């Protein structure tokens, strides 16, 4: 993955628009957050291999970027995206990595299902 080039990422988002695509979206503080910091309110969410079709995808803001997908009757967005790549399976993988190298958020788009 490389740091976000907003114009290039925008082109990639456009290329998946109006197609049935598989989505991976997660946010996380890690399972140990409230172990290492007592009282930490640990929240996160995860969906994987959900098929959606978006009509408009947009890169917003300066790094860390926000990515929003407008669906015919709904929305998907991720906040904190710093890195992205198109992998060898033509999947668009986006991630928000903290300065400590830990993933905080991921949004991935693929025309083929992700592994389990």
């Amino acid at each position, binding site marked *: *993955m490389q740091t976000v080039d907003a114009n290039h990422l925008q082109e990639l988002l456009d290329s998946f628009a109006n197609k049935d695509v598989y989505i*991976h979206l*997660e946010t*996380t503080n*890690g*399972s*140990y957050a409230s*172990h290492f910091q*007592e009282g930490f309110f640990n929240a996160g969410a*995860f969906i994987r291999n959900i098929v959606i079709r978006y009509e408009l995808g947009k890169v917003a803001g300066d790094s860390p970027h926000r990515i929003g997908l407008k669906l015919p009757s709904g929305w998907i967005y991720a906040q904190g995206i*710093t*890195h992205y*790549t198109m*992998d060898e399976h033509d*999947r668009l*993988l986006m*991630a928000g*990595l*903290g*300065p*400590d*190298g*830990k*993933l*905080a958020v*991921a949004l*991935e788009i693929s025309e083929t299902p*992700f*592994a*389990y």
Partner: protein
Amino acid sequence: MLQKERHVVVIFPHPDDEAFGVSGTISKYIEMGVPVTYACLTLGEMGRNLGNPPFANRETLPQVRKQELLNACNAMGLTDLRMMGLRDKTIEFEDPDKMIKLVTDLIEEVNPSLVISFHPQLAVHPDHNATGQAVVEAVRRIPEAQRPVLYVNAFDNNTVNVIGEPDVIHHVADMQDKKIAALKAHASQTLWMLQDMEKRWAAQEEDALEWLHNEKFYRYTFD
């Protein structure tokens, strides 16, 4: 001094769980000629350490961690590794009967005298506790005369208040090189922690050496 066992089964959800908690014990049993089977339920697919700049991404991390797991097993001399194909952070949401059956089938196949896993409530990560719950229930269902001994790891901050001090301590200082090699094998998870630990070991810090040289368990009792 570890007792000779017929066969030891270790069941943990993540590559690296074994390195932290039992790599000295596993290495020692293998040196003693005791067969050890390690069932690792997931490939740690949801690990957060990807580096910045990143060395992996969400989709390549499982292969990185699978190779690390194989390397760690080599470091310990373990040859019977079972990768069970579940997904990281989902164990607690699986059908409990399916999880119990997974454990039961493994125990029936290898007929261990000792099973090592996590405590069902005091192991911090939801996958750890869910794994412990499946193991405890599977072992509980075995008639007492055939039931293997069960040791569990517990490290919740409140552990000592709830169940006291560990009652099984394996002194495995003679396995420290293998333990360090197993930890190093899981570089994606341990690189940062090891940089700190190696300084502390070099400085002969008592608690760091104590952690390296002793592996502590609770013998699970069924009533």
